[in-house]
């Protein structure tokens, strides 16, 4: 039975927030989650370009066996800062960018629970990144790898590692404050009717993202603090000659480091779970299974860290535990892939750019998931660990999330954020270029690892047979770069020239598409009734008998 939809009404004027200015100060002092989200996006994309530039330098270096583009010392700084930048300044915080912008809209809230804390998270991110990078100004950039294992990191001369530790401390504060904010927002700010069981999948995955950050990142801070003390204040937490324990650091680092993978992956899964049903014109296949599997991944994520450390020689039962637990994570991950395919099955799929990225993501992620089975198997891991096979694996997992899921999400929500559509044919072109470039870059790395090439080497004069594979990867990295630059160009150009989007250009069903594009400072003038996880679908169904007389 059709219920009458409440007509849009103006809020009483005393509730109307002041129109924000557009000047620089209005951005620097804003506490609006949408503006903070946009600034998060700009900051993280800026660091992404820097991290990508360092990746290109590495690829140029490895194009020839002699590797003479940069010195080995500089090369070590490049891969250390590439990894650190991509993880801490790009993939993790770009999820906060989308979480900030989208979560309050998806749950029908006015803003985040703690708007000022939210602004603090943003500025800590920027300052943490600047602190980390200022090490270059002092001539001692971090050079012990993004994992920073002692004793190498403890013995590294200069202050590069100290900048690295303190930079990561600031970034951790930013992420933890953001995580607390997300959890409080999701649990306290939902609109009437928005039960947990009706929350969009992206909001659910931001909830799990925040939970994992909260439990994992402080462990990293502890590990790094001990390293800082060892380096500067004469303690011996990790110094074996004084009864310290080297391996303690690796346990702590990976107890953080493995959940970190899912911190990155789950919001990516959430974006895919938003995009696939909208463009397949179907509801999500197995909404509950998708939520439960995300929860299961969050739980398991804390039980598998040891598979990064098989070469340190655990006792056999410990090694077997980490192997089996790691494989077990494949089950809920598989459920997600199957449910996405189930959502597409029998659909009427429209290949708008976000959907291309979603299908591209599922395909590449299957490769990354399957190569993970090799790495979790103890006997095979003892061959492939610390080789280029690992580099291939984690780029297919942690790299495909930003490159396909996040860019897909960017194409999906760009109209909401800016009010304009991206250029469709440019977006489709750039997708195919990115897809080709990504696979050309990272697929040959499996072969390099299997042929015996260790990671983190700046040259390989004794193994010229690795050259062709490396040249394919180098070529791929340039193709990938062109694709990424086209996406950014499209985003900039469409700000001005894009078609006007309207409230809901994709015919989507979650609340963010109910309000205007871009939304007003207070987000919603009114909200539709929320009776399922697809309030806008329900609204259209109710209107349908009125609009389409039988």
């Amino acid at each position, binding site marked *: 039975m059709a219920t009458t939809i409440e007509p849009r009404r103006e809020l009483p004027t005393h509730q109307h927030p002041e129109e924000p200015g557009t000047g620089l100060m209005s951005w620097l002092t804003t506490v609006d989650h949408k503006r903070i989200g946009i600034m998060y996006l700009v900051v993280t994309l800026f660091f992404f370009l820097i991290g990508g530039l360092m990746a290109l330098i590495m690829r140029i270096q490895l194009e020839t066996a002699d590797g003479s583009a940069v010195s080995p010392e500089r090369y070590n700084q490049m891969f250390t800062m590439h990894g650190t930048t991509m993880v801490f300044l790009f993939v993790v915080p770009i999820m906060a960018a989308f979480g900030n912008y989208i979560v309050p809209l998806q749950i029908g809230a006015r803003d985040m629970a703690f708007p000022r804390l939210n602004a603090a998270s943003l500025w800590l991110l920027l300052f943490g990144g600047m602190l980390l990078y200022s090490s270059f100004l002092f001539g001692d950039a971090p050079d012990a790898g993004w994992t920073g294992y002692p004793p190498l990191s403890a*013995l590294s001369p200069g202050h590069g590692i100290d900048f690295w530790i303190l930079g990561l401390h600031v970034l951790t504060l930013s992420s933890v404050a953001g995580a607390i904010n997300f959890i409080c927002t999701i649990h306290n700010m939902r609109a009437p009717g928005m039960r947990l069981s009706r929350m969009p999948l992206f909001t659910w995955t931001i909830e799990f993202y925040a939970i994992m950050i909260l439990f994992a990142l402080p462990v990293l801070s502890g590990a790094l603090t001990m390293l800082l003390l060892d380096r500067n204040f004469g303690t011996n937490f990790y110094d074996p000659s004084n009864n310290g324990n080297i391996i303690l650091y690796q346990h702590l680092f990976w107890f953080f480091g493995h959940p970190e993978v899912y911190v990155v992956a789950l919001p990516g899964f959430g974006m895919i779970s938003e995009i696939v049903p909208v463009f397949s014109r179907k509801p999500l296949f197995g909404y509950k299974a998708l939520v439960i599997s995300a929860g299961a991944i969050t739980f398991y994520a804390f039980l598998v860290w040891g598979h990064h450390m098989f070469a340190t020689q655990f006792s056999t039962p410990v090694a077997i535990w980490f192997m089996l637990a790691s*494989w077990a994570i494949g089950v809920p991950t598989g459920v997600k892939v199957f449910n996405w395919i189930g959502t597409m099955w*029998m*659909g*009427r799929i429209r290949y708008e750019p976000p959907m291309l990225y979603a299908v591209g993501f599922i395909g590449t992620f299957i490769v990354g998931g399957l190569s993970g089975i090799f790495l979790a*198997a103890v*006997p095979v891991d003892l061959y492939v660990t610390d080789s280029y096979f690992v580099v291939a694996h984690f780029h297919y997992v942690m790299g495909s999330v930003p490159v396909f899921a996040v860019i897909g999400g960017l194409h999906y929500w760009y109209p909401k954020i800016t009010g304009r559509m991206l250029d469709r044919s440019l977006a489709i072109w750039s997708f195919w270029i990115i897809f080709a470039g990504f696979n050309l870059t990272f697929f040959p790395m499996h072969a390099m690892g*299997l042929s015996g090439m260790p*990671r983190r080497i700046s040259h390989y004069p004794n193994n010229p047979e690795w050259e062709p*594979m490396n040249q394919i990867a180098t070529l791929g990295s340039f193709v990938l770069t062109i694709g990424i630059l086209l996406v950014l160009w499209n985003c900039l150009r469409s700000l001005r020239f894009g078609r006007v989007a309207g409230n809901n250009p994709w015919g989507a069903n979650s609340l963010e598409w109910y309000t205007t594009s871009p939304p007003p400072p207070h987000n919603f003038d009114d909200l539709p009734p929320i009776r399922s996880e697809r309030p806008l679908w329900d609204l259209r169904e109710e209107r349908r008998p009125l609009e389409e007389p039988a």
Partner: protein
Amino acid sequence: MLAATLFATLVSLAAPLSALADTATPEQPQSPNAGAMNDVYFAILGVTITVFVLVGGSLLYSAIRFRARPGDPIDAPQIHGSTRLEIGWTIVPVLILVGLAGYTLAKMPDVQDAPSGARQVRVIGFQFGWEFRGVGGFKLPKNAPANTLVIPVDTPVKLLLTSRDVIHDWWVPELGQKADLWPGTTTDTWINADKTGTYDGQCSEFCGAGHPDMLIVVKVVTKQQFTEMGGQGA
């Protein structure tokens, strides 16, 4: 028509794939532990390629088969899920993994346990090189080039690994598993080379600016040559 296109695509992919087969597998194993690792690799490769073809195939199939065509209604049939299917695709992967785990666990002792009566060599890693010393009655040939371990063929040799400074990692792909070297602790790996020859490897835990130059050469010689070169206890 669609099936034919898919089939043609797969066939056209098969040729370059078979050319790549050599790079898609580990180096030819020359020691029983490397052989066992290789067996597990192939078992997993078989399973993962099957899964990839099935799951990737259904992704590709549904992506092409269910695309919207002109004249279709906008919305598709509203199917919310299928508990039976979802339980099915939870259980089947569990069963596959249980099978894989059984096989891997059965192979693990072949990798980990050095044969009894293995000769012992102490290996010391440092920035940026290796030192080798025979233990007990097992004496290595003197005057071997730097970073070169000379061992007799068909003789199990257990390597007792330790480091003088930072963490290093022993890796000679043809001759068995990696093992980290740390200061203050002894870890181990072993070799039972079944063919004479020279095998290259290198440190595979990042250890500083000289890391790419921390090469390993294992020279496997006949027992007679080993003795002639001044080794004892072969």
